[in-house]
C-alpha cells in the first residue's frame, strides 16, 4: 500500500509545490519512512539520468538539411502550407493536441494512453485541476481584471455561454479579482477568480447536463467542491483549506438563492 502523500512527495521533489505544501511534506517525510525512501529513489534516478546519459546536439549536417528545407518552404509557399497555417490559427481548447497535423491520431493515441494510465479517473476532474493549475501560471489567471461585479458579469455575456453569480466578498475574506473564459463539457465556461489569503480560488461554471454531478473530492492537493444552482453546474477549485473553500461556496449559494 502506497502512502497517500507519495504523489505530493514527488511533486515536492520536482519543485511543483507552493511553500506551504512544501513545508507540510518536509514535516511528513521526517516521520514517513516510505516517502523519505521515495525522495532518495527520485534523487538517484535523476542523478543517473542527468549524468550518465549523453545529451545529443543536432548534427551540423542535419541542421543544414533543415535550413535548406525551410528555404524551400519560404520559396514555394505551397497551398498546403497556407491551408495548414489557416487551420492551425483557429483557436482550440488548450488541452487538445494543439497545432498538430496528426489530429485524429494524436487524440486517439491520447485517449488510449489515458485509458491505460488511469481507467477510473473522471476526465472532467482532471480537466478542472489542469485548468486550475494552468491558471496559476503568469498571465493565465484572468482575462478581465476587476474587483467590481458590474464589470465582470457583463464581460461573461460576450465571452462565455453562461452567466454565473458574481460578487465581491472582500468583507468575508474572499476578494473578487477577475474573470476568465475556459472550455468545459463542450461549452465556453465562465470562471470567476477569487483570492483568499495567499490562495487563488477558481469558480468554474457551465450549463448543467444530465450526467450525475461529481462528488466533492481532493486530487493532487487541490480541493474540488461541486454544486448546482438553477441550470448551472458550479465547481470551486483551490488548495486552500476545505472549510475556507466551503465558506465561499456557501456565500455563492446564498447569492444564487437571493437572485433566483
Amino acid at each position: 500500500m502506497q502512502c497517500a502523500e507519495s504523489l505530493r512527495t514527488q511533486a515536492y521533489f520536482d519543485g511543483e509545490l507552493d511553500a506551504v505544501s512544501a513545508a507540510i511534506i518536509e514535516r511528513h517525510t521526517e516521520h514517513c519512512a516510505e516517502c523519505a525512501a521515495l525522495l532518495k529513489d527520485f534523487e538517484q534516478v535523476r542523478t543517473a539520468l542527468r549524468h550518465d546519459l549523453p545529451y545529443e546536439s543536432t548534427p551540423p549536417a542535419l541542421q543544414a538539411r533543415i535550413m535548406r528545407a525551410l528555404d524551400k518552404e519560404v520559396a514555394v509557399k505551397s497551398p498546403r502550407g497556407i491551408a495548414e497555417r489557416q487551420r492551425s490559427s483557429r483557436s482550440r481548447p488548450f488541452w487538445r493536441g494543439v497545432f498538430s497535423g496528426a489530429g485524429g491520431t494524436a487524440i486517439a493515441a491520447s485517449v488510449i494512453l489515458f485509458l491505460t494510465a488511469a481507467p477510473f479517473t473522471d476526465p472532467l476532474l482532471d480537466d478542472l485541476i489542469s485548468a486550475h493549475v494552468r491558471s496559476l501560471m503568469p498571465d493565465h489567471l484572468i482575462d478581465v481584471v476587476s474587483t467590481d461585479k458590474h464589470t465582470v458579469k457583463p464581460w461573461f455575456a460576450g465571452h462565455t455561454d453562461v452567466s454565473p453569480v458574481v460578487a465581491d466578498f472582500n468583507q468575508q475574506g474572499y476578494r473578487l479579482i477577475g474573470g476568465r473564459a475556459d472550455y468545459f463539457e463542450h461549452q465556453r465556461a465562465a470562471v470567476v477568480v477569487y483570492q483568499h489569503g495567499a490562495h487563488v480560488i477558481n469558480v468554474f461554471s457551465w450549463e448543467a447536463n444530465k450526467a450525475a454531478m461529481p462528488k466533492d473530492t481532493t486530487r493532487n492537493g487541490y480541493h474540488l467542491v461541486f454544486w448546482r444552482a438553477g441550470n448551472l453546474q458550479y465547481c470551486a477549485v483551490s488548495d486552500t483549506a476545505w472549510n475556507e473553500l466551503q465558506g465561499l461556496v456557501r456565500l455563492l449559494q446564498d447569492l444564487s438563492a437571493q437572485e433566483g
Partner: protein
Amino acid sequence: MDDRRRRFELVVLPHLDAAYGFARWLTHSPSDADDLLQEAILRAFRGFDSLRGSNVKAWLLTIVRNQHLTMLTQQRRGVFVSLPEEHELQDDQVMTGTMPGPESASIQQDEKRTLDRLMSALPEEHREILVLREIEEMDYRDIATVTDVPIGTVMSRLARARAALKARWLQEVSGEPHAVR
C-alpha cells in the same frame, strides 16, 4: 530572408537540440529521428503564426511528438513516403548515421551502458516522461501539454516510470557491490 523566417530562427531554433534529443528517444533510429525532426520543424514553421506567448519549447516538443505519432501510423499503414531530401543528401546521411546516439553512444562504463539499455527497454510512455522531466527538465504543466494528458496523469505516470526504472536497475545490479541502495 523574410521577417517571419528570421523570427522563427530566433524564437524556435534555440530549442532545436531539445527537439532533436526528444526525437532520438522517440524513434530509436538516427535516420528516423532526422526525418522526424525535419518534418516537425517544417510543421512548426507553418504553424508559427499560431504560437501564442510563452512556452516555445513545450510547443515545439508537442509538434515533434504529434509528428512522431503521424509517421508511426503512416509506417504501419505502409504509406510512408520518404522525403525527397533523403535522396539528395547521401553524404549527410552517412555522417548523421555514424553519430553516436543516446542508445548506442560509446560509453565505457558498464553502468552508463546499462542505464541506456534500461531506458530503451522501458515502455514508451515511461521513457518519454522521464526524458521530458529529467533530461529536458520540463515542469508538470509543460509535460501535460506535450503528452496531451491531464496533470494528474503526468504525476501518476511519472511516479510509475521512476519506480519502473529503479526496479529494473536494482534487478540489473543486484548482487553487485555498487548496487544502488
